[in-house]
């Protein structure tokens, strides 16, 4: 008696594996790539496209690229010439920062990581103490980078490259959050004059491009100040960047404030809390929590926008890149330089957007179909 003819009582039949075409890898291929004629054609076109693009990219960046050598003449394989990056690597990282002082940006960077981690993740031990450190980190960083009091003074003109990009990004973020909160609260205030002022400021800043604000900061700010008072270039750019991002931040936070149910406001009032108490203890903790993904997205935008300072003559990553491209020794290597800078930005921005996505999933679960 063969197996197929065996009789089972109802409900006793052992589970059979699913047919080969309905589960596992083959089914996945069938369903996701070759479900119909149109789909198959699409897949083939995509494979063809991918093959050509990937092989070109791999040739240019790796197999056909030159990694060792001294001058541009050594680059004869047809691909990228990465020598320009190696030659100017220190400039890309530190700008014109004095070579013997490189430990200071390095130390600042390590401390920055220590300061940022407790802000990003709420499940690390002793978070409160670490947060305290995060709060004083900007002052430590400023002291370490600019010097004085025992350290050699380094002029902000000498800051550059990734260092300057990070300084701009972090300062913009740190400054824009409190200003943004004040603007958002002002926009929802009951006082008509305060509200009008906040609305005007926010809408004005959001209506003009960042570059005009930077032009304003670099050309008009010196006119606004009393004679003899002079802000350096970096500070002017920082003021522009902070004003710009605080307007966007205010709108994000306003979204959070509006999402808090009215009962929370009324509850706080009923408890006899003053305006600032209710904001600090009841409303803002909830509102900010909702909009953290939005805040992170604003940060990503701000971080990318810091590149615009290269137009007003600061040497951030792009500013250093423009100098490298103009170098006679490395003429014509713009794609390599820009690709390297793009990679640096991609890594940090992609990490931030992943974090924001992770947070979004963590904050509201159960809404997905």
């Amino acid at each position, binding site marked *: 008696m063969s197996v197929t003819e065996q009789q089972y009582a109802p409900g006793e039949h052992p589970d059979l594996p699913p047919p080969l075409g309905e589960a596992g890898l083959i089914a996945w291929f069938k369903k996701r790539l070759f479900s119909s004629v149109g*789909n198959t054609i699409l897949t083939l076109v995509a494979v063809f496209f991918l093959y050509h693009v990937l092989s070109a990219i791999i040739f240019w960046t790796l197999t056909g690229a030159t990694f060792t050598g001294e001058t541009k003449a050594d680059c004869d394989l047809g691909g990228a010439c990465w020598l320009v990056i190696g030659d100017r690597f220190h400039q890309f990282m530190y700008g014109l920062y004095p070579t013997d002082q490189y430990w200071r940006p390095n130390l600042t960077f390590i401390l920055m990581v220590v300061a940022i981690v407790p802000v990003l993740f709420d499940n690390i031990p002793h978070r409160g103490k670490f947060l305290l450190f995060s709060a004083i980190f900007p002052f430590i960083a400023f002291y370490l980078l600019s010097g004085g009091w025992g350290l050699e003074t380094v002029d902000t003109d000498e800051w550059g490259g990734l260092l300057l990009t990070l300084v701009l990004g972090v300062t913009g973020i740190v400054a824009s959050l409190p200003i943004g909160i004040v603007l958002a609260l002002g926009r929802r205030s009951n*006082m008509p004059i305060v509200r009008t002022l906040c609305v005007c400021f926010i809408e004005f800043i959001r209506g003009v491009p960042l570059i005009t604000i930077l032009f304003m900061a670099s050309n008009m700010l010196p006119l606004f100040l009393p*004679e003899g008072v002079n802000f350096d270039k970096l500070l002017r750019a920082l003021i522009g960047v902070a004003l710009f991002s605080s307007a966007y931040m205010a709108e994000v936070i306003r979204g959070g404030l509006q999402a808090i149910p009215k009962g929370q406001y009324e509850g706080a009032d009923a408890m006899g809390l003053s305006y600032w108490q209710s904001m600090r203890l009841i409303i803002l903790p909830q509102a900010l929590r909702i909009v953290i993904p939005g805040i992170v997205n604003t940060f990503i935008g701000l971080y990318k926008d810091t590149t615009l300072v290269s*137009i007003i003559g600061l040497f951030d990553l792009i500013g250093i890149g423009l100098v490298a491209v103009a170098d006679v020794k490395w003429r014509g290597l713009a794609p390599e330089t*820009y690709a390297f800078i793009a990679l640096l930005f991609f890594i940090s921005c992609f990490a931030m957007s992943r974090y924001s996505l992770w947070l979004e999933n963590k904050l509201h679960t159960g809404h997905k179909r």
Partner: protein
Amino acid sequence: MSAETAQNARGSGGASLFSDQRFRSLFFQALVIGLLGAFLVFIVYNTAHNIEKRGIQTGFAFLDAAAGYDIAISPFMEYTATHTHGRVFLVGLFNTLLVSFLGIIAATFLGVFLGVLRLSPNWLVSRIVYCYVEFTRNVPLLLQILLWYAIFLALPAVKQSITMFNDIIILNKRGLIVPEPLPGDGFMLVPVALVLALFASIFFARWAKKTQAATGKIYPVFMTNTAMIIGLPLLAFAVTGFPLDFAYAELKGFNFKGGVVIKPEFTALWFALSLYTAAFISETVRAGIQSVSHGQTEASEALGLRPSWTMRLIILPQALRVIIPPMTSQYLNLTKNSSLAVAIGYPDIVQSFGGVTLNQTGQAIEVIFITMLVYLTISLLISGFMNWYNNRVSLVER
């Protein structure tokens, strides 16, 4: 009322006026106004002092002074170095509008296309679009503009130009050269016919909708209107005897003469803006389509609607409500981002007027004020138009 009076009485009799909310509110607003006023007086005083000290001229007289510098791209009006700064403003404004308008159109088409591809059941296609979107969104736009510009400048020189379609289209590092259309007598009839066809098709669509609502009879609106919009201008073109000539570019000496030259500055900016914004728009479109509950699709399939009708009649109208507000801000972003033209020297309003004119005249306040005003106006116009459109497509709720 009586409670309020009682409270006031207690306030004045007790600790301080500060327990009265209305007084507090007035006090703080007065304080804000006072501080702001003091700040403004401080700034105005300093500015006046500094301007006098540096010998900077004030007022808008510079708009009538000769600019004295050349602008390479001025497709809409004649411009030479002898024209005024006012003319520079107009040239820059039109260049900004041109690249923003073309950028918005390209970004919308590409973005919608990518957004739909991203939702494709085909895993490979969806992944490719995902990679494209992530790469584009996470790299600064300025860098992308510079990269495209570098690529266009790395094209072959004039002598080794790439030619397409039998020398009709020529591509080299100085730009893309296409034949210049030379409309002859009676060509004006073609655009007139096009406008007529557009009006007729709007009218026909309305009439067909009304008829369908009244009688249930369905007319092939899309086919008829397409035929009308393409056919009528063609007919006008044929009737007038094909009055269109082209001036082809020819290599004379070291450069091409004739034809329309599309400069690499424009192309690089347009490419970068469109590709960058398209990545954002595709995410908006994807989110919009995904926001429509799956039950809607199932219900429409249960009613027996075709997949294409499900998309057009059920999904899209609901998705549009979600898509349009973020789409508006993408359009605004694109327009504002076009100011990055200054990095590669495309003469938009920031590069020509806000850059060169500012440096020549030194009148930073007037120039930056006018430039900002232009962007504010454009922003208001775009968001006004999109709000009007949004009101049209939004659900009418009771």
